[in-house]
């Protein structure tokens, strides 16, 4: 989210899902909503039925790509080149929104100069997308009245993830397609409370509400409320904690509801780090790859067993309600409170609503949110005061950057951290399928889903399959510089030649043994979406 935050001010979707049916032009980029976000896709489908134009940027020919007016079938990891190329075409043809650029943005001249070198011919060479398609996509996007860019993890899960998001912001800004209903940038969130977890402070350099740790005034506010001094030093990112665990300077780790041993790339390295810790506590609802390395496992509570709130991808804060008593007797929030108390910092809340009241008092965007209000309505932040109705569309007036202006960012194509070569000739893309979810610890325990999709498959283009003499359901060995897995083949035209696709739902055939160690240097996001692999018949 650092990308949008840098360009626009806040790391959040600019619009609301309910506005989607009214869009005239949908630019879907690095997102496969019919599989990963089926309910979002319902909104988008409604727009398409009403006649919205569709441009899809995706190396796979997804459901949406099949129905697109233009399918930008880019090579994985060439997002910035595409975006710069589109901006180039728009400026060259005079399709930009000059008024918007003049009134609401800064640094335009720099980017104008910068994108000159991203002429269609060059971009075609880098991305594999034809000039004609690029021009048509640029035309459709810039000419639409209500144009929305919807992007997903195909944008962010690259080593240039943050910059990719900035590049998208550049495109929207150049056309002035932001700050109006049904017009803006929507980032689709992978997990239920990605937005909330970002908002509320479990980050090494920011306190709840994106308030920097480095800012003494902010620290003072929290110190006053919490009664202890706050360290002014930025903490370690998760990847750094794991690195330092291997270096033996980081000793004790508490993991709440995560499974880095399966979901982080380069799993072998992660597991080594977890093993090196002096003390590892994992709280989860199931045994996972990660709990194997724990010294103490604490039972977690599922969403049905506790009260609380989730914040969805459109900044909407919604209640989670306790339907049954926690199976282990205590909900997660109660466990943290108890531990805190045991360690000398009494934390006594009788109900999560009291925690929310504290959040509201310290976190400006959540300032007006309370359980009492949430019983009557859901609220989209920013909702600074008790009488604020919440915000459906961001930046209708000002951007939340200093000065209220959005900033064009100068970005260059860098490509993926690891490119295919003679030894590892395929690009592995990873992602989700509709029936399963992330590490699969939940969905693999749903009767029926395992009946439908019991095991992993690797998707491969028919031509590649013919070349390698692979037939449907053949068992393949897929290896990268970091590991090897066995997985069955699924031959499909959805894949372009040279690319293969796997999910990360199945520990038996885990794609994250293969994925690379490259990360986005700003957000620390791993490059899940592209690494080089070799595919062989076993």
């Amino acid at each position, binding site marked *: 989210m650092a990308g949008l935050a840098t360009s626009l001010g806040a790391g959040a979707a600019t619009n609301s899902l309910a506005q989607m049916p009214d869009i005239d032009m949908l630019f879907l980029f690095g997102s496969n909503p019919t599989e990963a976000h089926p309910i979002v896709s319902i909104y988008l489908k409604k727009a398409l039925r009403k006649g919205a134009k569709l441009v899809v940027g995706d190396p796979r020919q997804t459901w949406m790509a099949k129905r697109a007016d233009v399918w930008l079938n880019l090579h994985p990891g060439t997002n910035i080149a595409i975006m710069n190329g589109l901006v180039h075409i728009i400026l060259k043809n005079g399709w930009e929104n000059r008024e918007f650029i003049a009134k609401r943005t800064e640094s335009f001249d720099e980017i104008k100069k910068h994108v000159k070198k991203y002429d269609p011919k060059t971009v075609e060479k880098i991305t594999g997308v034809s000039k004609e398609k690029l021009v048509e996509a640029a035309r459709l996007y810039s000419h639409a009245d209500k144009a929305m860019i919807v992007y997903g993890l195909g944008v962010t899960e690259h080593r240039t993830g943050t910059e990719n998001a900035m590049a998208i912001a550049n495109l929207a800004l150049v056309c002035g397609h932001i700050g109006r209903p049904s017009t803006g940038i929507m980032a689709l969130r*992978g997990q239920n409370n990605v937005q909330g977890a970002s908002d509320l402070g479990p980050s090494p350099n920011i306190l709840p509400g994106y308030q920097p740790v480095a800012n003494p005034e902010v620290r003072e506010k929290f110190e006053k409320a919490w009664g202890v001094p706050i360290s002014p*030093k930025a903490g370690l990112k998760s990847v750094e904690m794991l690195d330092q665990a291997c270096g033996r300077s980081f000793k004790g780790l508490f*993991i709440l*509801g995560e499974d880095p041993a399966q979901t982080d790339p380069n799993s072998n390295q992660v597991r080594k780090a977890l093993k090196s810790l002096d003390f590892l506590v994992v709280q989860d*609802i199931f045994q996972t790859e990660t709990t194997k390395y724990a010294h*103490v496992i604490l*039972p977690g509570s599922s969403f049905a067993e506790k009260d609380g709130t989730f914040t969805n*991808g459109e900044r909407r804060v919604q209640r989670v309600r306790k339907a049954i008593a926690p199976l282990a007797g205590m909900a997660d929030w109660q466990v943290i409170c108890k531990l805190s108390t045991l360690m000398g910092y009494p934390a006594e809340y009788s109900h999560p609503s009291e925690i929310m009241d504290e959040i509201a008092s310290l976190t400006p965007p959540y300032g007006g949110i309370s359980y009492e209000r949430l019983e009557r309505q859901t609220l989209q932040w920013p909702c600074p005061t008790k009488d604020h109705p919440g915000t459906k569309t961001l930046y209708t007036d000002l951007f939340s950057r200093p000065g209220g202006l959005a900033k064009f960012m100068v970005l260059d194509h860098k490509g993926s951290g690891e490119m295919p070569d003679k030894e590892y000739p395929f690009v592995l893309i990873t992602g989700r399928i509709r029936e399963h979810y992330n590490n699969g610890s939940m969905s693999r325990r*749903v009767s029926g889903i395992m009946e439908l999709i019991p095991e992993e498959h690797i998707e491969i283009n028919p031509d590649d399959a013919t070349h390698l003499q692979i037939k449907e359901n053949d068992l393949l060995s897929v290896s990268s510089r970091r590991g090897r897995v066995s997985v069955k083949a699924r031959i499909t035209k959805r894949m372009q030649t040279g690319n293969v696709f796997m999910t990360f739902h199945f520990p038996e055939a885990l794609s994250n043994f293969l994925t690379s160690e490259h990360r986005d240097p700003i957000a620390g996001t791993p490059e899940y979406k592209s690494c080089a692999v070799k595919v062989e018949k076993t």
Partner: protein
Amino acid sequence: MSKGKIKIKINGKKISCSEGDTILNAANRAGIKIPTLCHDYRLEPYGSCRFCSVEIKGMARLLPACTTPAADNMDISTDSETVQRIRTRLVSLMLSNHPNDCMRCEADGDCSLQDLAYEYNVDGSEYGGERWDLPIRQANPFITYEPNKCIVCGRCVRICNEVVMAGTIDFTGRGFNTVPDTAFRTARTLSNCEFCGQCVSTCPTGALTDKKGRGKGRAKDFKKVRTTCGYCGTGCNFFLNVKDNKVVKVTSDYNGPVNHGNLCIKGRYGYDFIHSPDRITKPLIKKGKKFVEASWDEALGLVAKKFSEILKKHGPDSCGAFSSSRCTNEENFLLAKFVRTVFKTNNVDNCARV
């Protein structure tokens, strides 16, 4: 369509509405209830069940309120003798081809047809004649289809084609034998079905039911708890149906601001992990190579002790925590606070900064 204001009269009451509004919408807004069966506001108006038919002055025929746009000066009656007669007729015709076995029906207590039969006090026995005798279809893990209970309102067909755009089911047959089904009556598993259960959510009778919830209780037995889905970041709302402290079913919350009752396979059917036998229900402490069950006090005591020791020996920055975007806002806030107030470090991170 232009949005000029027009005036209409419903049951003698003067109402102002927008041009292009259907009679049904105008009536609903004015608090006048018109019964419907084939209507679901997630779908385009259809007009097949004819239940919402109203009498309009100057028209020989009744017109369905759901599809008919209101026009200026329309004089509408929603409860005239003719309207009532037709509604009675429609319920009885529907029941004339229905098993009428409510006592063992999964949808008992949650069935629009049952409600209407009660309200209009008819059973359709006066017609005699043919009744469907079609086999139950359930060659899939999630959806049971009892075509004999289908009233052919087309809601399942429309939600599958209009909303989900999966195209799994459509009408088959003609005339009296028109019935929604998959192409060539193949199993849903072979017919492109996404198993979102949207068809189940919109079915007004017991024709389409959730297979996993069958026999586990009926509408009146459940405590319904409105909550937010724990899978992806869309934030769909639904009801957890609870009986005896167990979640046995998920049903749609049609007022959900995000999803309006729409759900996907995981949201609607992905709940059984909650009661999975694999759940960790007691704290576990590793002793040697094995994990041994422990009490909360013992486990948390150990955790507190161990962290305190490390912190004391190696300083605040030797410890840290990963928070989760799977957990609630409150838990994320608490964990961040815990690390900063107890560990006294900023070593806290989550996977969500993407």
